[in-house]
């Protein structure tokens, strides 16, 4: 059986942020049981900062992935290497709210004043407050799933949704990422599930979609926003209602969704982060959060869920539920608290790779005597070429920033696997939530041994000998091995060499 494609629906701001974290996980080379991942972003707020960040991160990932594995690389080759999994550029199923104005305008509320519609109007008034009815839809549903459930129905009429149904194959899977406590996600998840499982559907490949294995992650409340802004009418988002909304939504899921979803993951955190209160738009750029990484890991777990089965009725259990737990409850999560050694190693390798790319690679590539560079046949200007620049961009614009955001003080539970004192422009990053400033790092030879919080690297220094982590030496040792593989693709050879070198260094220096 060929590997399935995964259609990954990321709904709302949380959906986009989880997708960003998933991109980081996949960049580490974590193996997934999918031919490729096709993200489908659903957000009425097209200018949302989180969506923008997600879009840019995937774009940068995609450029690297395509340069390395874009042509002539078989599915089984290079498994586990950095950027190995293909993530297609996200399809954005946005039904821009600006097309509708307010909910009132969208449903042509005024026409309900005509004779014979008084009961309909009454019912509508029962479900929607004056504030709901007059809400501008351009910034999402601002925590009102009752509004979202009406507007989002238009998603299935979008061109991108039709393309998805046309391309859907019989082995493909669907996964939906949404938050349960907001507006867009809470409304979008049930809506999509009902569309996918509608046996009378007339959409393309409806039979395949009906029988597909569908999973979802529902993110329970994990942050709160400044309630003062809600009280003073500066924002329409009120985080004090998150729990109530969650309870109501869970109750709805229990009654209506549990038979539709094959694998449902619940993640959340009682130790919540504190965010600024913005009504969507460009300013809504919430920092990455550990919970989003956990939610992203559920996507990978889902792809391994009964991997040899392609239809829902072939599953041993058609409904499964999953939760995530940490080894210990702590305000600071390090690699020691993660259970999976494979994930730890992947994160470690990728971090050292990024340290090399951002701090050492430029000088190495400029050195025309450096053996590994010459063995691979890289030109003296390779550091200025497209691929090398994109590696550096991914590292300095997205990877470190993602790590940095995960470790911010506004999180009551920080994810700090690595020592981020190597970032020398932290102040600038805090002042730049839009992510325009590249992260600058400075790493000393000694620091290379203590980059991982709580897990020092093996240091063989003695009285007469100073141990060093020698990246270029390792790469040079392995260069011939890579050259012998005859990739005929310099980017692939370069990334493969860096991966192998990092693997050797991590295996030599760390023990799990």
């Amino acid at each position, binding site marked *: 059986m060929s590997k399935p494609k995964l259609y990954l629906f990321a709904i709302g701001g949380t959906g986009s942020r989880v997708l960003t974290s998933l991109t980081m996980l996949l960049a580490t080379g974590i193996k997934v049981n999918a031919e490729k991942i096709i993200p489908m972003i659903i957000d009425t707020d097209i200018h949302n900062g989180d969506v923008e960040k997600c879009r840019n991160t995937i774009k940068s990932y995609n450029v690297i992935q395509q340069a390395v594995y874009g042509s002539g690389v078989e599915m089984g080759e290079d498994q586990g290497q950095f950027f190995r999994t293909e993530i297609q550029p996200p399809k954005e199923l946005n039904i821009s709210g600006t097309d509708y104005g307010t909910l009132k305008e969208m449903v042509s509320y005024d026409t309900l004043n005509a004779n014979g519609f008084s009961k309909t109007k009454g019912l509508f008034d029962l479900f929607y407050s004056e504030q709901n009815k007059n809400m501008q839809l351009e910034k999402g549903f601002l925590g009102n799933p009752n509004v979202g459930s009406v507007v989002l129905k238009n998603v299935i009429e979008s061109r991108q949704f039709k393309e998805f149904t046309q391309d859907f194959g019989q082995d493909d899977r669907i996964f939906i990422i949404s938050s349960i406590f907001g507006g867009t996600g809470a409304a979008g998840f049930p809506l999509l599930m009902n569309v996918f499982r509608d046996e009378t559907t007339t959409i393309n490949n409806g039979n395949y979609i009906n029988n597909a294995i569908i999973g979802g992650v529902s993110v329970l409340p994990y942050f709160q926003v400044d309630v003062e802004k809600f009280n003073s009418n500066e924002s329409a988002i009120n985080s004090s209602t998150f729990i109530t909304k969650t309870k109501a939504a869970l109750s709805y899921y229990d009654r209506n969704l549990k038979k539709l979803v094959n694998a449902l993951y619940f993640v959340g955190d009682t130790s919540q982060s504190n965010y600024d209160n913005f009504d969507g738009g460009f300013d809504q750029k919430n920092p990455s959060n550990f919970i989003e990484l956990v939610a992203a890991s559920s996507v990978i777990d889902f792809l391994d869920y009964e991997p040899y089965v392609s239809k829902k009725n072939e599953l041993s259990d058609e409904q499964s539920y999953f939760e995530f737990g940490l080894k210990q409850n702590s305000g600071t999560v390090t690699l020691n608290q993660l259970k999976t050694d494979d994930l730890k190693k992947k994160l470690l390798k990728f971090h050292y790779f990024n340290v090399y790319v951002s701090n050492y690679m430029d000088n190495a590539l400029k050195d*025309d*005597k450096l*053996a590994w560079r010459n*063995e691979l046949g890289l030109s003296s200007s390779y550091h200025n070429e497209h691929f090398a620049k994109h590696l550096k961009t991914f590292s300095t614009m997205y990877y470190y920033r993602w790590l940095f955001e995960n470790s911010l003080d506004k999180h009551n539970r920080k994810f700090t696997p690595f020592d981020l004192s190597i970032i020398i422009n932290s102040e600038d990053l805090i002042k730049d939530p839009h992510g325009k400033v590249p992260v600058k790092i400075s790493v000393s030879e000694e620091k290379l041994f203590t980059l991982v919080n709580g897990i020092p690297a093996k240091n063989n220094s003695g009285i007469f000998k100073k141990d060093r982590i020698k990246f*270029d*030496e390792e790469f*040079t*040792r392995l260069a*011939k091995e890579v050259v012998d593989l005859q990739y005929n693709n310099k980017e692939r050879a370069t990334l493969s060499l860096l991966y192998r070198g990092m693997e050797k260094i991590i295996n030599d220096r760390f023990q799990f």
Partner: protein
Amino acid sequence: MEFFYFLFEDLNHWDIWDQKGYSTGLIILFATTILVTVFYYLLLGRKTMRFSTLGGWFVFGLSNFLLVFIITLFAQGFGVFELAFGDFFYEIWIFSLLNAIYGFVLYIFASLFFKRFSIFSKFIPVKF
């Protein structure tokens, strides 16, 4: 042999130079230079990247120059001409210096041959 050392002429001791002096110098020149080059490319050049720079290579060339000079000086002085310690024989110093210069030139050519056997210094002193 004298053709190789055509820049050097000592007519007063021509027979000694012709019988032993030139051949001893040539053996020292080749043996020392090959040893230094092998040490640089096959031992160090496969073990560590520390000396795999143009500067490192030059330092080893300079070391070879000094080694050839000193060994030639001692071998000619004590072995060939059997001088006592403290005696000064001007021609031996000139010959040793010339041999050392030849040593550096030979080091360059030997490097071009041996660099292919190295891992880290494969592209030193020149990339081809």
